[in-house]
């Protein structure tokens, strides 16, 4: 079996300047923090980030914003990160705001091979501007199009050697959805265990979706 495990450094080397990245996490909870630190260290720039939010300065995706590595974000919320708002107002960062449920569904649509989703969310609001609507059984829906990316950077509680992933509580959030919607999927598990340790029923992301696993940090001095 060819191992999927690679170092953070190698993972980041695969990501070019200007890449589009889906990054899991909700205000930093369930974000792949070692990859984010690697992106900052290697100074990847002009990135497009698709995520729920931009966390806070110094936390998760907030580190990429602070380091001015991001050109555009597609997110549902920036209220917790004043630096995102500052760069947006200064014209240095393009911010596209999307309702959270719509963002999740647009990512899911891309990953599941759908041409879009029809949602009532946003009808009659500024979100609907410039978008097509479809009427079904008397109800008007907004047509929202699939969102995909070059890379999905997902955080997981555990992976097995094949790359099957399980998640922890609210650290799950967008991670399993993003794992279907990018050309290359890099997973950062907290633990890598032998195949079979994660029972089939608790695997959330099947190994076929995962291209690379970030290898463990050696913390016991060896």
């Amino acid at each position: 079996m060819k191992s999927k495990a690679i170092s953070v450094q190698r993972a980041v080397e695969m990501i070019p300047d200007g890449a589009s990245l889906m990054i899991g996490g909700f205000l930093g909870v369930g974000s792949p923090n070692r990859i984010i630190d690697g992106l900052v260290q290697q100074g990847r720039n002009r990135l497009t980030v698709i995520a729920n939010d931009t966390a806070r300065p110094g936390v998760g995706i907030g580190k990429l914003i602070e380091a001015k590595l991001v050109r555009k974000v597609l997110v549902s919320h920036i209220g917790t990160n004043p630096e995102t708002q500052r760069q947006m107002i200064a014209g240095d960062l393009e911010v596209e705001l999307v309702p959270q449920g719509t963002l999740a569904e647009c990512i899911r649509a891309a990953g599941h091979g759908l041409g879009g989703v029809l949602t009532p969310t946003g009808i009659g609001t500024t979100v609907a501007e410039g978008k097509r609507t479809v009427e079904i059984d008397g109800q008007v829906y907004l047509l929202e199009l699939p969102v995909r990316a070059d890379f999905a950077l997902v955080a997981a509680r555990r992976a097995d050697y094949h790359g099957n992933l399980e998640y922890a509580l609210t650290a799950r959030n967008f991670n399993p959805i993003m794992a279907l919607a990018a050309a290359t999927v890099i997973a950062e598990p907290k633990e890598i265990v032998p195949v079979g340790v994660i029972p089939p029923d608790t695997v959330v992301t099947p190994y076929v979706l995962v291209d690379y696993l970030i290898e463990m940090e050696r913390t016991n001095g060896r």
Partner: protein
Amino acid sequence: MDAKELIARRVALELRSGDLVNLGIGLPTTVANYLPPGVEVWFQSENGLIGMQALPAQGLEDESLTDAGAGFVGAIPGACSLDSCLSFGLIRGGHLDVTVLGGLQVDEAGRLANWVVPGKMVPGMGGAMDLVTGARRVIVAMTHTAKGEPKILKRCTLPLTSVRRVSLVVTELAVIEPTPDGLVLREVAPGVTAAQVVAATEARLVVSEATREMPIIETGVSRTT
């Protein structure tokens, strides 16, 4: 009792045992502290949890168990975690019984604006648009005025969160129900007259003899199940 506590206590009376409830950040979160005795509801957090409860004690924080503001919380037996699609499927699909949200403005058609003040405050809508569009009942918990200016208007001047008519508006002065016939003044707070509510409201209010005094329970129990 200050205005926000009064609002939270009154909103808590709207919850029924067995309800799946999503509380917004800020004032709405405090509704959990005032559930009437015997009422047990399930709290959903849109970041992916059903069965949220307050963190039982300091020192028990789990970095993967958080609310929608990234604060540490606990979970009750029977809790389950959800990815963001399932979480919003519950919200948008009509499976969430009640959402309680803060508000910047509500208009005569019962439409809520609560996500942006163009040029001043652009936090983003987060889950608000999905919650207002999809929850079975939408309760707006907000102060009646802001710096003396009415927040219940003929027409919202701020961008709308949804065109859906919300179910109930609870303020420190009144309980108002948006209906197809307009905003009906259901209750006034203790010591407040209907005339005072009308004076603090730009939108037309339907005042009737059925308008009663707001019931408030003084002794809520914190039962965040």
